[in-house]
C-alpha cells in the first residue's frame, strides 16, 4: 500500500541508515506535518517516536504552588462538554487521554503503555484499526482501577446523541471494543491515515465509567461529577468555581515516577489578556498566563521587568481574508450572498489577484503581531518548515494597479476604478479585536492608493462567530465582500480543515447557514482533490493531494493569508513549561517543573 520510494525511505529509517529527523525533514519538504510524518513511519513499520521528556526532578512533590492565570476561566470540567479550549484546559488538569502531543508533534504516552505500531501489532496494515495497550496499575483518584471498560464507556457515552457531547464527531463513526482488561481496539469504517484522534489529546481525555455510567444520554447534565472531576491525572480535584477558580493538589498515587512536581495547583480566571501578562511577566504574582494576545510592543516593555517572559509555540493557525464568491448585495429568494449569484467584482480573477498584492503581510507582522506572527503565502500552515513550497506572495501597489489597468478597471473622476459602470467598492468585515482593526486599516490604506474604495466594518465577536440564524452579521451569512478571521487548527492533520470548502458544504439559507463553506467556493477540481485525499491511504500521495488543495485555494485567491499565528503564553522565568502548538496548554502539565 505504500509508495515504493517512501517504502525504501522507511526501510532506511528502520535499519538505521537514515535518521528519523532526516526522514521528517524529507516529509516536511512535501508539506507534511510532524505528527503525521511520525504516524506514516508507524504505518510503514517503524514505531512512532516517543516524545522525549526533559523532566529533571528526582522526587515527587516539593515544588510548592503552581499558579496559573487563565483570563477566560473554565466554566465546566467535563471534557466531553467543553465548549472551548478553556474548558478542555481545565478538564485536562484532572483527566488524562491515552497519549498527548509534545512540541515537535511526537506522541507522548499518558495512559497507554506503548505506541501502536505495525511491529507490536497495534496498527493494521490497511489503516482500518488500531489497538491500544493500557498502562497497568493506573488508579482513578478515588482508588478504583482504570481499565479498558472505562475507554469503551467513553466511546458509548460520547457517541450517544442524547448525551449531546461535543466530542461526538470523533466517536460516532468508529467502533471501540474491549480485547481484555488492558487492551482496546478501535475499528474505523474506512482507512484512516490519522488514527490518533480518539482518546488522544486534551479534548479526548477519558472520564471514569463508575461515576458517569448512570448519567449517559439525556441525564448527562445531572451528573454531579461534571463539576467535580475524579480523574487519573497528576493533580487531584479540590475546588471549582465556574469562571473564577479551579484548585487541585498533588496526587500521591500518580502513575508516572517522580511526578508531579508541584504540591498544589491553582487556575484563576477572569480579567483580560494585558493585565494577565502584567501579573505574570511584570509583577510575578502568577507563574503562567495562557493565550496572551497582546501587542508585541507591550510584551517587550513588560519583559524589561525581568520576572517573566513571553513564550511561543508553532501550530497551524492562519489569519486570513476570505473573498465572497457570491453577490452580497443582491437578494435571491430572500437570501443575500446566494449561491445562485456571482460576485460582480470578484468574478474577475484580476481583481482577486490585485487584492492579494495589496495585503502588506510584512507590515502587519511588524506593526501588529511581532514575534507572534509569520508571513505566509499558504492557507494551510504546518510548523515552520512544513508548508507548500509552490506558492509565493508579494506586496506591490504598482503591480496591483497595473494588473487592474490591464484588466480594464480604469480610475474614474473620484479616483475609484470602474469598469462597465461597476465601481471597485468593497465592504470588509471582521470581529472586534485590536489587531484585526489595525490590519483592516493597513489593507484599506493600500487599496486606496490602488484606486479601490474599501469600507470597514467590525462586528462584536459574540455575534460574528455565532450560529444565530436571525442575525445578518455572522461570518457564515457573509453579507460583505471580504471577511477576516482565523479558524483554529485543532488537529495536526488537515482533513477536517480542508473539507470545509467543498461545494456540498456551501452555506445557504436552506441549510440555515450551517454549511461550513462560507466563502461559497465551488470548484469541481477542488472537490475531486479532497475526495481523493480522503480515500487515499498512501501517505505521500495524500500529502501531495492536500498541498494541491491548498494551491488551488491560493491560485483562485479564495483566501488571502494574512499571517501564520503562533500561540503566545506568558511564563515566569524559572518555570519550565512544555507547550505544544498542536495541543492544549495543560496537555504536558505533568512534565512542568521549576528550576532552582
Amino acid at each position, binding site marked *: 500500500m505504500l509508495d515504493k520510494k517512501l517504502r525504501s525511505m522507511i526501510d532506511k529509517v528502520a535499519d538505521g541508515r537514515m535518521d528519523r529527523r532526516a526522514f521528517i525533514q524529507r516529509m516536511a519538504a512535501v508539506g507534511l506535518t510532524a505528527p503525521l510524518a511520525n504516524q506514516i513511519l508507524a504505518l510503514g513499520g517503524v514505531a512512532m517516536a516517543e516524545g522525549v521528556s526533559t523532566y529533571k526532578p528526582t522526587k515527587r512533590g516539593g515544588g510548592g504552588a503552581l499558579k496559573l492565570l487563565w483570563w*477566560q476561566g473554565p*466554566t*465546566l470540567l*467535563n471534557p466531553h*462538554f467543553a*465548549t*472551548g479550549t478553556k474548558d478542555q484546559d481545565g478538564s485536562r488538569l484532572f483527566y488524562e487521554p491515552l497519549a498527548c502531543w509534545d512540541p515537535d508533534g511526537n506522541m507522548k504516552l499518558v495512559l497507554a503503555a506503548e505506541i501502536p505500531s505495525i511491529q507490536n501489532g497495534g496498527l493494521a496494515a490497511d489503516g482500518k484499526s488500531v489497538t491500544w495497550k493500557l498502562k497497568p496499575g493506573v488508579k482513578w483518584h478515588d482508588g478504583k482501577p482504570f481499565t479498558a471498560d472505562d475507554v469503551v464507556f467513553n466511546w458509548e457515552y460520547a457517541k450517544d*446523541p442524547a448525551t*449531546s457531547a*461535543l*466530542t*461526538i*464527531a*470523533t466517536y460516532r463513526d468508529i467502533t471501540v471494543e474491549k480485547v481484555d482488561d488492558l487492551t482496546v481496539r478501535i475499528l474505523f469504517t474506512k482507512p484512516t491515515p490519522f488514527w490518533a484522534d480518539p482518546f488522544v489529546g486534551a479534548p479526548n481525555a477519558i472520564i471514569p465509567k463508575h461515576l458517569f455510567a448512570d448519567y449517559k444520554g439525556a441525564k448527562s*447534565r445531572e451528573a454531579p461529577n*461534571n*463539576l467535580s472531576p475524579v480523574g487519573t491525572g497528576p493533580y487531584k480535584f479540590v*475546588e471549582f*468555581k*465556574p*469562571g*473564577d*477558580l479551579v*484548585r487541585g493538589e498533588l496526587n500521591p498515587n500518580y502513575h508516572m515516577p517522580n511526578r508531579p512536581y508541584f504540591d498544589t495547583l491553582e487556575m*484563576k*480566571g*477572569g*480579567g*483580560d489578556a494585558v*493585565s494577565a501578562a*502584567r*501579573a505574570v511577566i*511584570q*509583577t510575578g*504574582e*502568577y507563574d503562567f498566563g495562557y493565550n496572551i494576545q497582546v501587542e508585541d510592543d507591550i510584551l517587550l516593555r513588560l519583559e524589561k*521587568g525581568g520576572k517573566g517572559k513571553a513564550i511561543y509555540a508553532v501550530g497551524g493557525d492562519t489569519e486570513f481574508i476570505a473573498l465572497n464568491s457570491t453577490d452580497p448585495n443582491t437578494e435571491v429568494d430572500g437570501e443575500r450572498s446566494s449561491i445562485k449569484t456571482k460576485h460582480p467584482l470578484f468574478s474577475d480573477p484580476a481583481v482577486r489577484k490585485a487584492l492579494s498584492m495589496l495585503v502588506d503581510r510584512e507590515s502587519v507582522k511588524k506593526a501588529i503581531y511581532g514575534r507572534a506572527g509569520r508571513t505566509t503565502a499558504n492557507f494551510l500552515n504546518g510548523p515552520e518548515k512544513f508548508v507548500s513550497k509552490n506558492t509565493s506572495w508579494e506586496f506591490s501597489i504598482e503591480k496591483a494597479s497595473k494588473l487592474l489597468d490591464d484588466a480594464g478597471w480604469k480610475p474614474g473622476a473620484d479616483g475609484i476604478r470602474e469598469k462597465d459602470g461597476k465601481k471597485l467598492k468593497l465592504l470588509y468585515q471582521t470581529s472586534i479585536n485590536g489587531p484585526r482593526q489595525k490590519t483592516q486599516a493597513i489593507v484599506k490604506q493600500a487599496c486606496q492608493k490602488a484606486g479601490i474604495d474599501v469600507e470597514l466594518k467590525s462586528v*462584536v465577536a*459574540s*455575534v460574528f*462567530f*455565532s*450560529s*444565530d440564524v*436571525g*442575525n445578518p*452579521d*455572522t*461570518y*457564515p451569512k457573509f453579507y460583505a465582500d471580504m471577511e477576516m*478571521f482565523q*479558524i*483554529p487548527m*485543532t*488537529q495536526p492533520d488537515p482533513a*477536517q480543515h480542508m473539507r*470545509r470548502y467543498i461545494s456540498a458544504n456551501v452555506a445557504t439559507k436552506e441549510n*440555515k447557514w*450551517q454549511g*461550513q463553506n462560507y466563502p461559497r467556493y465551488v470548484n469541481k477540481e477542488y472537490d475531486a482533490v479532497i475526495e481523493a485525499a480522503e480515500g487515499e491511504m498512501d501517505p505521500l500521495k495524500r500529502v501531495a493531494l492536500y498541498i494541491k488543495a491548498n494551491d488551488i485555494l491560493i491560485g483562485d485567491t479564495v483566501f488571502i493569508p494574512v499571517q501564520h499565528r503562533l500561540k503566545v503564553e506568558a511564563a515566569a522565568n524559572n518555570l519550565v513549561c512544555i507547550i505544544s502548538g498542536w495541543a492544549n496548554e495543560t496537555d504536558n502539565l505533568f512534565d512542568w517543573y521549576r528550576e532552582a
Partner: protein
Amino acid sequence: MSQYVLRRLLIAIPSLLGISLVLFVVLAMAPGDPFAELATNPNVPPEVAAALRAKFGLDDPIHLRYLHWLSAMAHGDWGFSFVSRMDVDQLILQRLPATLYVIGSAQILALLIAIPVGVYAATKPYSLFDQIANTLAFVGFSLPTFFTGILFILIFSVTLDWLPLVYTTDVKGTGIRWVLEMIRQAIMPVAVLGLFQAASMTRFVRSAMLDVIRLDYVTTARAKGLGQAKVIVKHVMRNAMIPVVTLIALQMPAVFGGAIVTEQIFRIPGIGSLLISSILANDTPVVMAVTFVFACLVVLFNLIADVLYGWLDPRISLR
C-alpha cells in the same frame, strides 16, 4: 404601618412581572447564541450544535419560553446555565460573598468619608476646608474607576510592590493572617470604588445640609443656647438626611450587583464579573436571573427608604 408595607409589596408584584417580561423579551431578541464558539470549531458538526439548541429549548417560541421560565422561577428554580451546565442560583451564591465584601466595604468607606466631610463643609461654607473638599470631590467623580484602578495598580502593585494585582477567592492561611491578607487584597478595589462614591456623596450631603442649616428652626435652636454640635447633629442632620437616605437606598442594589468595571480590573469574582462574562458568552439564563434579582432589590430598597422617611421625620405619615 404594616398595612402600608403589605400594600406596597402587593403593588410590587405586577411591576416585577412587567420588568421580567421586558427583560426576557429583550434578551430573547438580542443577537448571538450560547453555542457561538462551536460554530468555528471544525470538530463539532453543525447537527450537534442544532441538537444542543433544541435540548436547551432555544428553538421554542418566545412566549412559551417565558411561561416556562416564570413557572420555574415561582418554584424556586432560577434556571440552568448553558455554559457551566449548573444551576444559576448556585453560580450566583458562589459569587455573592466577594461582591458583598468588596462593594459593601466600599460603600461604608464612602459613607464614612462623605458624611463627616459634607457636614463639616456645610457648617463652614466657602471656608478653606470647604474649597479643598469641593475641589477634591470634583476631581474624584471626574476620574472614572477604570482609570484610577489602573493608576493604583501601576503605583501600588507594579512600582511599589505593596499590594497584589489579582484578587484571590481563597486566601491561604488561617486566623489573623487570613484576615490581614483579605484586607490587603481588598484595599485597592475598595479605595477605588469608595473614593469615587464618596466624591459625589460628599457634594450631595453638603448641599442637603446647606438647605436645612438656613431654616428658621435652626436659628431658634441656636437662640435657645444649644451648643453647635447638638444643633448640627440633632436638628440639622436628621432633617438633611432624608434625600441622602434616598440616594443610599438606591445605591444598595448596586452593592449586590457589583461593579462591573472594577471587578474586571482587579479580577474580583463578584456578580458584576459573572454578569459581564455571561453576557459575552450569551448565557441568557444567568443574565436573566442576575438582572431580575437587581430589579427585585431596587423595588425592595425603595420600600425600605420610604419606611425610613417615617422614622427620620415623624411628620411624614405612611398610609
